């Protein structure tokens, strides 16, 4: 049975036997999206990449075709995803998450790799610096807009000094975001309380514990776990009359009062622009790794009203999107 499975696998690859891979700037590119898990943020990032490809003037079916591979959270399958893409003669891998980037770095050294949905490409091993990196790799790292969020807090909500957030110690992106938030909070003179949560079922209790720690506001770090269980965090904060500030657009709709969004959808869009440059002939070695820096401010008037917190008009005017209120979405 093992021999039969091996033979079937080889036969599936028969058309590639002895054939050299030829890649030109004008042919239809086979793009492989390599994902570790299937969570809300990955879907956001994926939607961003597809939007970015369209924005770059590339047409699905004419200029490229997309295949999506997902390990469904099984780490031992991550390498197999990359190998499956290589065996199918992928022209480019677009990775979503740190483990898939690392597997691509190890296993796909002759195929262009564009990463996104990663908090730090450098920490994941993509290079020594943004310009000195693996020659086939480029991409976009994303850390939350900590400085911008803390500036808004300091300017418009001067009574808020103690902040709290849930985080998942197992999520690399969240851990890196926590380290960055720690540094930014120290610079800006804020205190931060962290409560760990490992699974979605931990979140309601962890959120309740966080609200009991005498915090002035929640500043929720972005992450898989907290994104999917944000309802529990918002509910616990609402019960304790604590305002929620966050970094993901979806959380403004979910009840956060102010969101300084630098999210995976936007960074995915930007990663697609880098991919489009490679598809038009650019060498990934010459494209520096990037730290995504664009932010957009979203305020939720309904959330503010439910807490009896007046949002400063100047803050509302500077928002790119206003949720709730008499005017509805803007």
């Amino acid at each position, binding site marked *: *049975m093992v021999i039969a499975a091996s033979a079937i696998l080889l036969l599936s690859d028969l058309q590639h036997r002895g054939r050299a891979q030829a890649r030109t700037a004008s042919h239809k590119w086979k793009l492989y999206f390599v994902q570790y898990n299937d969570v809300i943020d990955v879907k956001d990032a994926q939607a961003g990449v597809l939007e970015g490809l369209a924005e770059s003037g590339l047409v699905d079916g004419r200029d490229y075709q997309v295949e999506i591979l997902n390990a469904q*959270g099984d780490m031992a399958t991550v390498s197999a995803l990359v190998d499956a893409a290589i065996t199918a003669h992928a022209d480019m891998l677009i990775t979503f998450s740190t483990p898939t980037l690392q597997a691509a770095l190890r296993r796909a050294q002759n195929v262009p790799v564009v990463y996104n949905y990663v908090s730090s490409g450098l920490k994941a091993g993509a290079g020594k610096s943004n310009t000195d990196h693996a020659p086939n790799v480029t991409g976009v790292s994303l850390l939350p807009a900590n400085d911008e969020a803390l500036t808004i807090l300091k300017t418009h909500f001067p009574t808020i000094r103690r902040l709290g957030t849930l985080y998942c110690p197992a999520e690399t992106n969240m851990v890196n975001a926590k380290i960055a938030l720690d540094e930014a909070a120290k610079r800006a003179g804020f205190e931060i309380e962290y409560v760990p949560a490992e699974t979605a079922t931990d979140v309601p209790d962890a959120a309740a514990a966080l609200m009991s720690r005498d915090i002035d506001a929640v500043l929720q770090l972005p992450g898989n776990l907290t994104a999917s269980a944000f309802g529990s965090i918002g509910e616990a904060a609402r019960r304790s009359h604590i305002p929620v500030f966050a970094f993901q657009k979806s959380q403004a709709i979910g009840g956060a009062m102010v969101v300084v969004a630098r999210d995976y959808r936007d960074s995915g869009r930007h990663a697609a622009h880098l991919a489009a440059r490679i598809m038009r002939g650019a060498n990934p070695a010459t494209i520096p790794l990037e730290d995504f820096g664009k932010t957009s401010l979203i305020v939720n008037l309904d959330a503010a009203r439910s807490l009896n917190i007046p949002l400063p008009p100047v803050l509302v005017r500077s928002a790119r999107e206003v949720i709730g209120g008499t005017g509805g979405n803007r």
Partner: protein
Amino acid sequence: MTLLLSAWTIGLILSLLALGIYISYRVFKFADITADGSITFGAAVAAAMLTHGRHPLAASGAAFVAGALAGTCTGVLHTRFKINQLLSGILVMTALYSINLHVMGQSNLPLLSATTLATYAQDLGRWISGHDSATLMGWPVSARDLGSLLLAAAIVLVIAAILWLFFNTNLGSAMRASGDNEQMIRALGVSVGNMIVIGLAIANGLVAFAGALLAQYQGFADVQMGIGMIVWGLASVIIGRALIGSDSVGAALTGTILGSVLFRLIIALALRWGLNPNDLKLVTAIFVFAALVLPSAMQKVRRHAAAS
């Protein structure tokens, strides 16, 4: 061909996990959930040592010792504190989650710039093929893939041979007897508790060693890499038994290794055929079901044909 080599390599690496689970589950009838934590423990210890410049063999050996310690803890919890088998494993696995985070200092450690066994595997592949790439039955393969497969196969063969020899020693026979007939072995003056502790130490040592090899092969260790591993390990052991159909030690070890390889081949096939990612696990389960029932179904058909 790359996917085939990779499926075989990961299958062989994870066969060490399956061999560990074979010892706890088949030899001792002990449902040891520690494996989910000890595979990551092995990866974490090896990765932490490798990033500090330690030799890959020392790092992999330390991973085995770390896993053995974890297994010892589970065994002691069960035999000395009389805690239920499953709960002992759950307690150690849960504790290992935090320990793994401490060992790595973060949730993910890249090994791309460290010298690992994968580096030696690449050198081995280059030495055999004479280049960075080679041709195998007409397919181009990289020296690293070829070397990794050969190295993994050599390691698994050596470990399987050691286990086979061990289970034929007095101590090994006593261990097997402890699982088969506890009362009889106790009457012969053997401490069943000690046998369970030693057995779980060896089992989790192997599981952790598999974690160390997997981290070096994939180029990173991640605190989430153990999730669900116990299930795949158990599946490999059971598939292996269905494949071989014999209970002798040699056959069981061979079957377990082949079961693990078959399992990874099935996943590789599902990926190669471009199935909807959401269906990956469903399709894997169906394939495994087919692998389990097909041999006996074919046997029945043959018997029926011979009778008529």
